[in-house]
């Protein structure tokens, strides 16, 4: 395992994307959001994505410096077409519109379609929370990320379809729920494949219906000289919590896909496009009695003081493992497997980052 200084890592990723054709602001955002995922401990959505993002950019599957189109704009509804722009640009643009409208009108909905990979969805919940708002997000992909079998089925029909919810708290970090509705996100399969944390038992199902945790059923084969293709395997990731997660995943397809008009998952897609339906709520618009802030504080204390289960030190709140990870990794550097780090350096060299800039990044 290699540890890289997070600020230097941000700088490197920014440099890679500037050289690959993004303007400075966009490249800075990509660096910031990807490294933020690593800091939060969500390595699957972090810099491990750099080689793939650069490949997509080269292949024209994601467009640098794209201006999203506002396809619908009422007092409380915004529909944004990302036109295959980077999610790190489409996301902040659309989320800011949602926040502004909820500030003015109490609540608003934003439907995003055709966005490049939106990254860690918790980012958008954190952005709304920083503006003092509650937000709820449902995400799908149009098909390239189709990896999940419905409950009772053996073949992929849905994407990993994350859901995020953010709740701001007075004077401290927000509560952030952020999970894939599959047992694991695809990135966790990538991490397992490149020698990182193994997958939980039975997280996957192979083509003939047997439960497994071998990521090869997703990727078919692992040849480090070839780009990975998650369409090469015949297996699928299973939905979290059996029928319940399967139901949530299907709802993400309807909300993030059908309603945004980006489309629910379908086969033969070769671009990764995300759709996201987001709900923003201004707390003041509901909370005339100023009950909310104190009640959340009381409830959080109530949950934290539960008697820990055997072998557990402390009950952790949604968003707390990420806070702990952030502090640790800012201090100790971002851990990356040698495979992952090597493929990032390889990508950096390929876009012309000078060798001298690739030295001294490790902690």
């Amino acid at each position, binding site marked *: 395992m290699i540890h890289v200084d997070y600020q230097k890592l941000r700088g490197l990723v920014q440099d890679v994307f500037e050289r690959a054709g993004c303007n400075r602001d966009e490249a800075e955002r990509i660096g910031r959001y990807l490294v933020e995922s690593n800091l939060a401990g969500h390595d699957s959505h972090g810099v491990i994505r750099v080689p793939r993002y650069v490949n997509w950019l080269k292949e024209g599957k994601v467009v640098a410096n794209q201006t999203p189109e506002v396809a619908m704009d009422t007092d409380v509804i915004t529909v944004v077409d990302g036109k295959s722009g980077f999610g790190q640009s489409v996301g902040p643009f659309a989320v800011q519109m949602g926040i502004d409208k909820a500030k003015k009108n109490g609540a608003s909905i934003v439907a995003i379609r055709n966005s490049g990979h939106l990254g860690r969805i918790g980012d958008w919940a954190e952005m709304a929370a920083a503006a003092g708002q509650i937000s709820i997000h449902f995400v799908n992909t149009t098909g390239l990320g189709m990896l999940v079998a419905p409950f009772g089925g053996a073949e992929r029909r849905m994407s990993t379809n994350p859901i995020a919810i953010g709740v701001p708290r007075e004077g401290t970090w927000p509560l952030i729920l952020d999970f894939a509705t599959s047992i694991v996100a695809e990135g966790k399969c990538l991490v397992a494949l490149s020698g990182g944390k193994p997958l939980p038992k039975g997280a996957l199902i192979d083509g003939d219906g047997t439960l497994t945790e071998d990521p090869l059923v997703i990727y078919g084969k692992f040849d480090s000289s070839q780009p990975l293709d998650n369409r090469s395997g015949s297996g699928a990731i299973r939905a979290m919590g059996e029928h319940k997660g399967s139901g949530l995943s*299907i*709802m993400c397809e309807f909300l993030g896909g059908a309603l945004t008009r980006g489309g629910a998952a379908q086969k033969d897609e070769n671009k990764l496009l995300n759709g996201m339906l987001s*709900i923003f*709520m201004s*707390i003041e618009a509901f909370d005339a009695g100023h*009950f909310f802030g104190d009640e959340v504080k009381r*409830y959080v204390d109530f*949950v934290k003081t539960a008697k820990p289960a055997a072998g557990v030190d402390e*009950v952790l709140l949604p968003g707390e493992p990420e806070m702990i990870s952030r502090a640790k990794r800012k201090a100790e550097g971002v851990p990356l497997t040698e495979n992952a780090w090597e493929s990032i350096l390889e990508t950096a060299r390929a876009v012309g980052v000078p060798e001298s800039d690739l030295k001294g990044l490790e902690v």
Partner: protein
Amino acid sequence: MKRFASNAVERLATTIFQRAGSTPEEAATIAHRLVDANLVGHDSHGVIRIPQYIERVLAKELIPNQTIEVVSETDVLAVVDGRFGFGQTVGEQTMRLAIQKCTHSGISVVALRNSGHLGRIGDWAIMAAEAGKISLHWVNTSGGGILVAPFGGSDRRLSADPIAAGIPVKGGSPIVADLSACVIANGKIRVARNKGVPVPEGCLIDANGQPTTDPEVFYADPPGAILPFAGHKGFALGVLVETLAGALSGGGASNPENPSAYMIVNNMLTVVLDPAVFMPEASYAEEIDRFVAWVKGSPPLEEGGSILMPGEPEERSRADRLAHGLEIDDKTWDQITAAARSVGMNDTDVIELMG
């Protein structure tokens, strides 16, 4: 175990609630929703609740014939207080308001507090779907239903915290996901206890945090707890449901110290969306139909099996139970007849109503 025609059970339930003080309309609504929960296979939210509701009416903790109070509202949102009325009445009034605002603004968000037990939350998603709307619902209790341990914890800190979502389908039954953030519904433990059977593994822990399948443990002193579904994910969902439904509505997140903690008070946050605002009706219908067919085309794991969309098991159960009647175990039946007696009915009344 007894088997009854659903309309006979509905007739009996209607009479019981009427005798307890509900108007004929309210009594019929409550009876209809409870029996419907049995029909769709959610026995935990069905007529097994009659004794509990009646007990609470007699204790003046649940108030018949209430009207919601609109605490605040704009074109797009509202905060309403159910004034401890029957959830079947309060929920319907709240959903009518939410649907109306959504028709006007394209979306709406309504926070309901201090409602009696809202029953099966999927009902409210179906009500919105019948009006052509997509809806999302988050529900908690203020303190009377603290049942679930946190992930990594060993005593109760959360409600069952159900969520529901409904997608209208042109010319068909809506797709309705309706799930609690815990592994097993409280009512299902009660059903197991009344039947004298164990609950499935991985659902319950005892007061020491040890896994168990014995439903009695849940009612012991000190009591056991239900586990969140899917580990930390279901726990996170539960915490956020408490916050969205309880804290934002003003009804309160789970709190044993809440003044209303001795009652079953539900709070619900509802978001309603009008798909017609986002796209032409035909495009919406086409995409829903395409995706449903696509999902159902995943080869079933079990030979001869089929992939069921959310809400489909319920529709199948309804067809079966309408044809073959409802099974009610003896203990539950005794509790229901005792509830009937407690509102002044005698055994002859019950026999006559059951035909």
